[in-house]
């Protein structure tokens, strides 16, 4: 935790106090956090930061910061990572991953190299494959069901630390 605090501190040394016993209310804006080396190349970095921030705007207090890294570490259990993964991929935060969310995800992943029809095809396929309750979008149960069978989820996803 000390190391994390060190990192947090060095991002904005004039703002972050070294002494946390008085529980100060300090938040770092999103721009600073996105530039951290672990997150810099990640296409979902804004979403990650947003989903961990208390106010939904993307500013992280130290507690949120620690929270984020504890989920992103290798020690976090699979269910926890699945929960946060769902939140991250849900761009419009309606607790469902709808087609628009999928399209946004795909675009971020491929940096918009796919054509529009390819995008729609892929999104349709995803919904078809994973949607269990037939509502045309992925609820958390669908997502969890699909992710729990994925062999690579733990290895590649959410292991920044």
């Amino acid at each position, binding site marked *: 935790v000390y190391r994390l605090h060190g990192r947090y501190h060095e991002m904005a040394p004039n703002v972050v106090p070294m002494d946390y016993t008085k529980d100060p209310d300090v938040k770092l804006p999103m721009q600073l956090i996105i530039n951290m080396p672990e997150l810099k190349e990640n296409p979902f970095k804004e979403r990650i930061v947003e989903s961990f921030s208390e106010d939904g705007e993307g500013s992280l207090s130290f507690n949120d910061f620690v*929270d984020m890294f504890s989920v992103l570490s290798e020690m976090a259990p699979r269910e926890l990572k699945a929960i946060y993964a769902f939140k991250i991929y849900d761009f419009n935060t309606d607790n469902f991953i709808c087609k628009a969310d999928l399209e946004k995800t795909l675009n971020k*992943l491929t940096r918009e*190299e*796919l054509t529009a029809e390819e995008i729609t095809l*892929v999104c349709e396929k*995803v919904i078809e494959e994973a949607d269990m*309750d*037939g509502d045309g979008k992925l609820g958390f*149960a669908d997502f969890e069901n699909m992710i729990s069978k994925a062999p690579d989820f733990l290895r*590649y996803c959410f292991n920044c630390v």
Partner: protein
Amino acid sequence: KDKEEDESKEEDSCSQQNRAPRKKNYQSTDEKKAEEEGDQQRGKKVPTKEQKESENKERKTNKKGKEEENKQKQDRKNSTSSASSNSSDEESLSEEELEMLMEEVEQKKKLISTMRNKPWRMVKKLSVLREAQAFVEKFEGALGKGKGKKLYAYKMMMAKKWVKFKRDFDNFKTQCIPWEMKIKEVESHFGSSVASYFIFLRWMYGVNLVLFGLIFGLVIIPEVLMGMPYGSMPRKTVPRAEQATAMDFSVLWDFEGYIKYSALFYGYYNNQRTIGWLKYRLPMAYFMVGISVFGYSLMVVIRSMARNANESTADGDDDNFIFSWKMFTSWDYLIGNPETADNKFASITTSFKESIVDEQESNKDENIHLRRFLRVLANVLIICCLCGSGYLIYFVVKRSQTFSKMQNVGWYERNEVEIVMSLLGMFCPPLFETIAALENYHPRIGLKWQLGRIFALFLGNLYTFLLALMDDVNEKLAEEDVVKNITRWTLLGHHNSSVENGSIATPPPLDPADVPRGPCWETTVGIEFVRLTVSDILVTFITILVGDFIRACFVRFVNYCWCWDLEAGFPSYAEFDISGNVLGLVFNQGMIWMGSFYAPGLVGINVLRLLTSMYFQCWAVMSSNVPHERVFKASKSNNFYMGLLLLILFLSLLPVAYTIMSLPPSFDCGPFSGKKRMYEVIQETIELDFPLFVAKIFSYVANPGLIIPAILLMVLAIYYLNAVSEAYQRANAELKKKMQMQREEEKNKRNNKASTNPMLEDLEDLLTPSTKSESQPKQAEDKKTEPSTRSSPVGKQGKAAAPGGSPMTGGRGAAFTPPPHVFVTQPPPLGVRAPYLGQPRPRGYPPGPVPGRGRGQPFY
């Protein structure tokens, strides 16, 4: 923090209440807490944190309400006195309260341990954690009854300390893992597949280190410390003829001269039964260490394979979620380098495009005959190459034997064997790749074929090498008899001559350097292996240096003044060849295993090699390699490499076992000299050192009559276990199919109601006019055969049908998947027929089945 203090004060007030006759209140808050904990734990699966937070907030407000009630009802006491007053008043705690307390404490403990899994905000987690910990601490001490209390508290404290110690130790261990930071750096630049090579290298290093420790500690050190020193015995001294050149570098480089007569090789060891004041049985130790090297390696490899198999229990053929997985799990979060990220994006895009193409393509309309012909042709070519290379090696080894008899051999002739083998290893794999282009396989399968062929190449080389070596050994054995005679005559002659000189005293012993030496075939074999290993090391390093580093420098610097773009075009930067490197490592290890019995120092050389190779390759990768074009995943290949390692281990065990069992050891060198067979050392030890009954036991055990039934028993056990595992796999597949069918059915229930209708109509048309019996059986049979062929691949068809191919197939898929549903809801007689005919009926045509049923019966 205020919240927390309030909560802890509430605890105190609760505990205060215990003493006052307010049991009811306490119990109710207790129960409330229990309920809360239960809910919190059950609530793990609640998807949204907002819901949870609101839930918790509710509860907290309720709790606060109660708190205020309590505060109003009595004075606040100081929290510090609670502990002491607890201990004094514990006698007033009744049995039930104790039990409830214990439950509470257990629940809190569980909460603490599962805290990590909860998707709460950090602040909340911290506060709940602190509360739970305070509660546990306070009441744990109180749980022990009476006299046992102190012991209980002590036990708890020790348990806690032990947990803390274990955690610290784990932390320490993770810090101690060598090269962890280096490997993580490589991983972030190149992805996890390249890093997996380095992890494999590190694992190998660990294994070799252990082997080296074994050999060094149990064989080399005792001989050096307690055995006869250099020069005291014939086997330990350089023969007079060679002494002039013994220190030359070229001789040393060939591992002749002083090195040949040192503890690195078999020939140095004395066959004295026990050495030193400890009575250390060196020959026995040598033999046992040789065997345990193989035993330990086998154990370690199999354990690692089992661990890998456990981790990858997720089935590979569960490709129901191809696109979903691609979308959600393809980004490698460990990438921290922009270049790698670019590559990753490109590879993800390519992978999506590929899957889309796969999806859109129906059948590959290919000429199957042409394909088969090409594949056969390619295989024939490759087999020719393999045979050719095998013969080449054999030929070269034979030539080197004739060379060794000649006097003035150039450097090339001496090292010809190694050079040829290394060259083959360098040029054949690309050749195989170009030939494999004929075969036109899917890249993953193509890679496996390629690895298999390279493996066969190296294996063939190795075995040809061994065969040539065996010829050499046999020759030397024949020579030995001759030399034995010569030695005897020389010694005799020496004695006679000294007697003639008139000395009465015992003749001075012949200077060890002058004694004619027999050809020590084990040492020769050892030397050959060491030379092979060293040349392999050199070739690898030089290849990396030239192939990667110099090439990178060339491309980088000459690019400014070259016609075409070197970086994008022909040479460009090298990619890290994972499979080639891993195979090289595996084969190197095989050679080490083979040679370590004859050259105990070989493992030490290998340890050094792995160490330098780790640093060298890390540096080379970071400085001159570029990430792969297709950043691929390292998931299942790991067991493949372990499997190769295991295979090589067995194959390298064979020659050593053969020589131990059937070749006579040299008469004048090594720890087994003078015996007829090497394994006789065991018999000797048993006879002389162990009490009598042990010898009897061993002689009974070694009876073939006992061993053969034991082998039979093991074979039967293997067969049984295999059958059991197959049954489990089948059960697994069945369950999966069922789950899948249920899924499809759920989906189709909601989505494809429309598409079942045409199917229903079709069937209705077919069945309603079939009141006449002639048309019935035919149609019914048609329907029966058709559905029966379809019902078996229902699982896979369901998947293919569902994605919206033709609506007809979709309808069929839908129509065939409800059978389980139908089984449940229909009366049995119809249910039996349902898979064939009746599925569409229950949907919306209740009058339909009735006439159908009547008609259906004559079908049986």
